[in-house]
């Protein structure tokens, strides 16, 4: 007999009190910068969101709120990472969403099952020494989100 799961509720606008007490955005302090902006369906930056990254290969985790950079987030991630699991939280989202960021063109099962347009939305773009990965909740070029 399986127990019903506790339902999700929004992280709300004040999550940083509890969830951003420490600097948690370096999965690898010597890693490559991965930055981006979280956008809503109107194309406006979301300044009360939060991104969590999980690199299962190196078992490193990070978290960054989007308040300080008005919708922007910034991490340092392992240079040799291929793909990271991503969770997106914000006020207005009753449950977090799951996506992935590929640091280079992938060769895994998920990547192979996506079409070119979907791949383009999950592939971080190089900008100098950094990688850029924007997350768009809705719209023509919305990020691909996965079942959880």
């Amino acid at each position: 007999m399986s127990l019903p799961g506790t339902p999700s509720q929004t992280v709300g606008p004040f999550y940083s009190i509890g969830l951003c007490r420490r600097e948690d955005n370096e999965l690898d302090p010597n890693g490559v910068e991965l930055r981006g902006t979280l956008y809503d369906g109107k194309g406006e930056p979301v300044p009360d969101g939060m991104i969590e990254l999980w690199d299962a290969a190196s078992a490193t985790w990070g978290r960054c709120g989007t308040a300080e950079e008005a919708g922007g987030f910034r991490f340092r991630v392992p240079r040799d990472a291929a793909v990271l699991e991503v969770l997106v939280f914000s006020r207005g989202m009753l449950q977090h969403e799951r996506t992935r960021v590929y640091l280079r063109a992938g060769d895994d099962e998920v990547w192979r099952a996506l079409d070119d347009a979907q791949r383009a939305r999950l592939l971080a773009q190089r900008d100098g020494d950094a990688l850029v990965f924007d997350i768009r909740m809705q719209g023509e070029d919305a990020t691909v989100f996965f079942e959880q």
Partner: protein
Amino acid sequence: MSVAVDPYEGPVVLGDDPSFGPEVQVDYPGYRSTRWRVPKRPLVTLPEELMALDGPVFGEDAIDELDNDLTRRHEGEPLGERITVSGRVLDEDGRPLRGTLVEIWQANAAGRYRHEVDQHPAPLDPNFSGAGRCLTGDEGRYRFTTIKPGSYPWRNHPNAWRPNHIHFSVFGRLFRQRLVTQMYFPGDPLFAYDPIFNSVRDPEARKLLIARFDLETTVPEWSLAYEWDIVLGRGGRGTTPLEPQ
């Protein structure tokens, strides 16, 4: 002739719909901010190995001393009704999840968050930050000492007030067990009017968000006790509906 109805201009609270089970309705129109923030395209299925992925594990270094006592973080004691909130973190099979990180945050007794965005004209309490965390112990137990948070207005709709609640963030063992939710207090008169609470459409599932007052663990002459177990299920959409009670 049919007239298009904008669901975001409709009622703040929709009727019950048990078919949702423990799933929250992510595009619940009464919570207006969902409109531009919820994905519109169907979600893509992941292969089983990614659904079974382990998540992050946190050790004692994630916890500061007194992190589980929100009443002892400052020089003086915060104002308000002192409470303990405790319970177990379980998986769907009822197995306790030990050593998992639980983080909480909340308004003070006057209904004000210590956050620059909170403009509610209620007093801040110099002795209350409103944040805590702990790792679950044996039997998956967590325990916090805090004060009962106050209700506060928000601008979702005219005369909108949130029921008293404490925000919880829990990791679990699997990556997909990640949960951020809110714990409510029994008998709150605002339940019927709150779109966030009612975005859980199944009335049986809403009960899972409400703590139980517990006289047994209430400490005489000291603090009222609330018990609340957290079950980390399969996550959201795709969850099996609750059995009829």
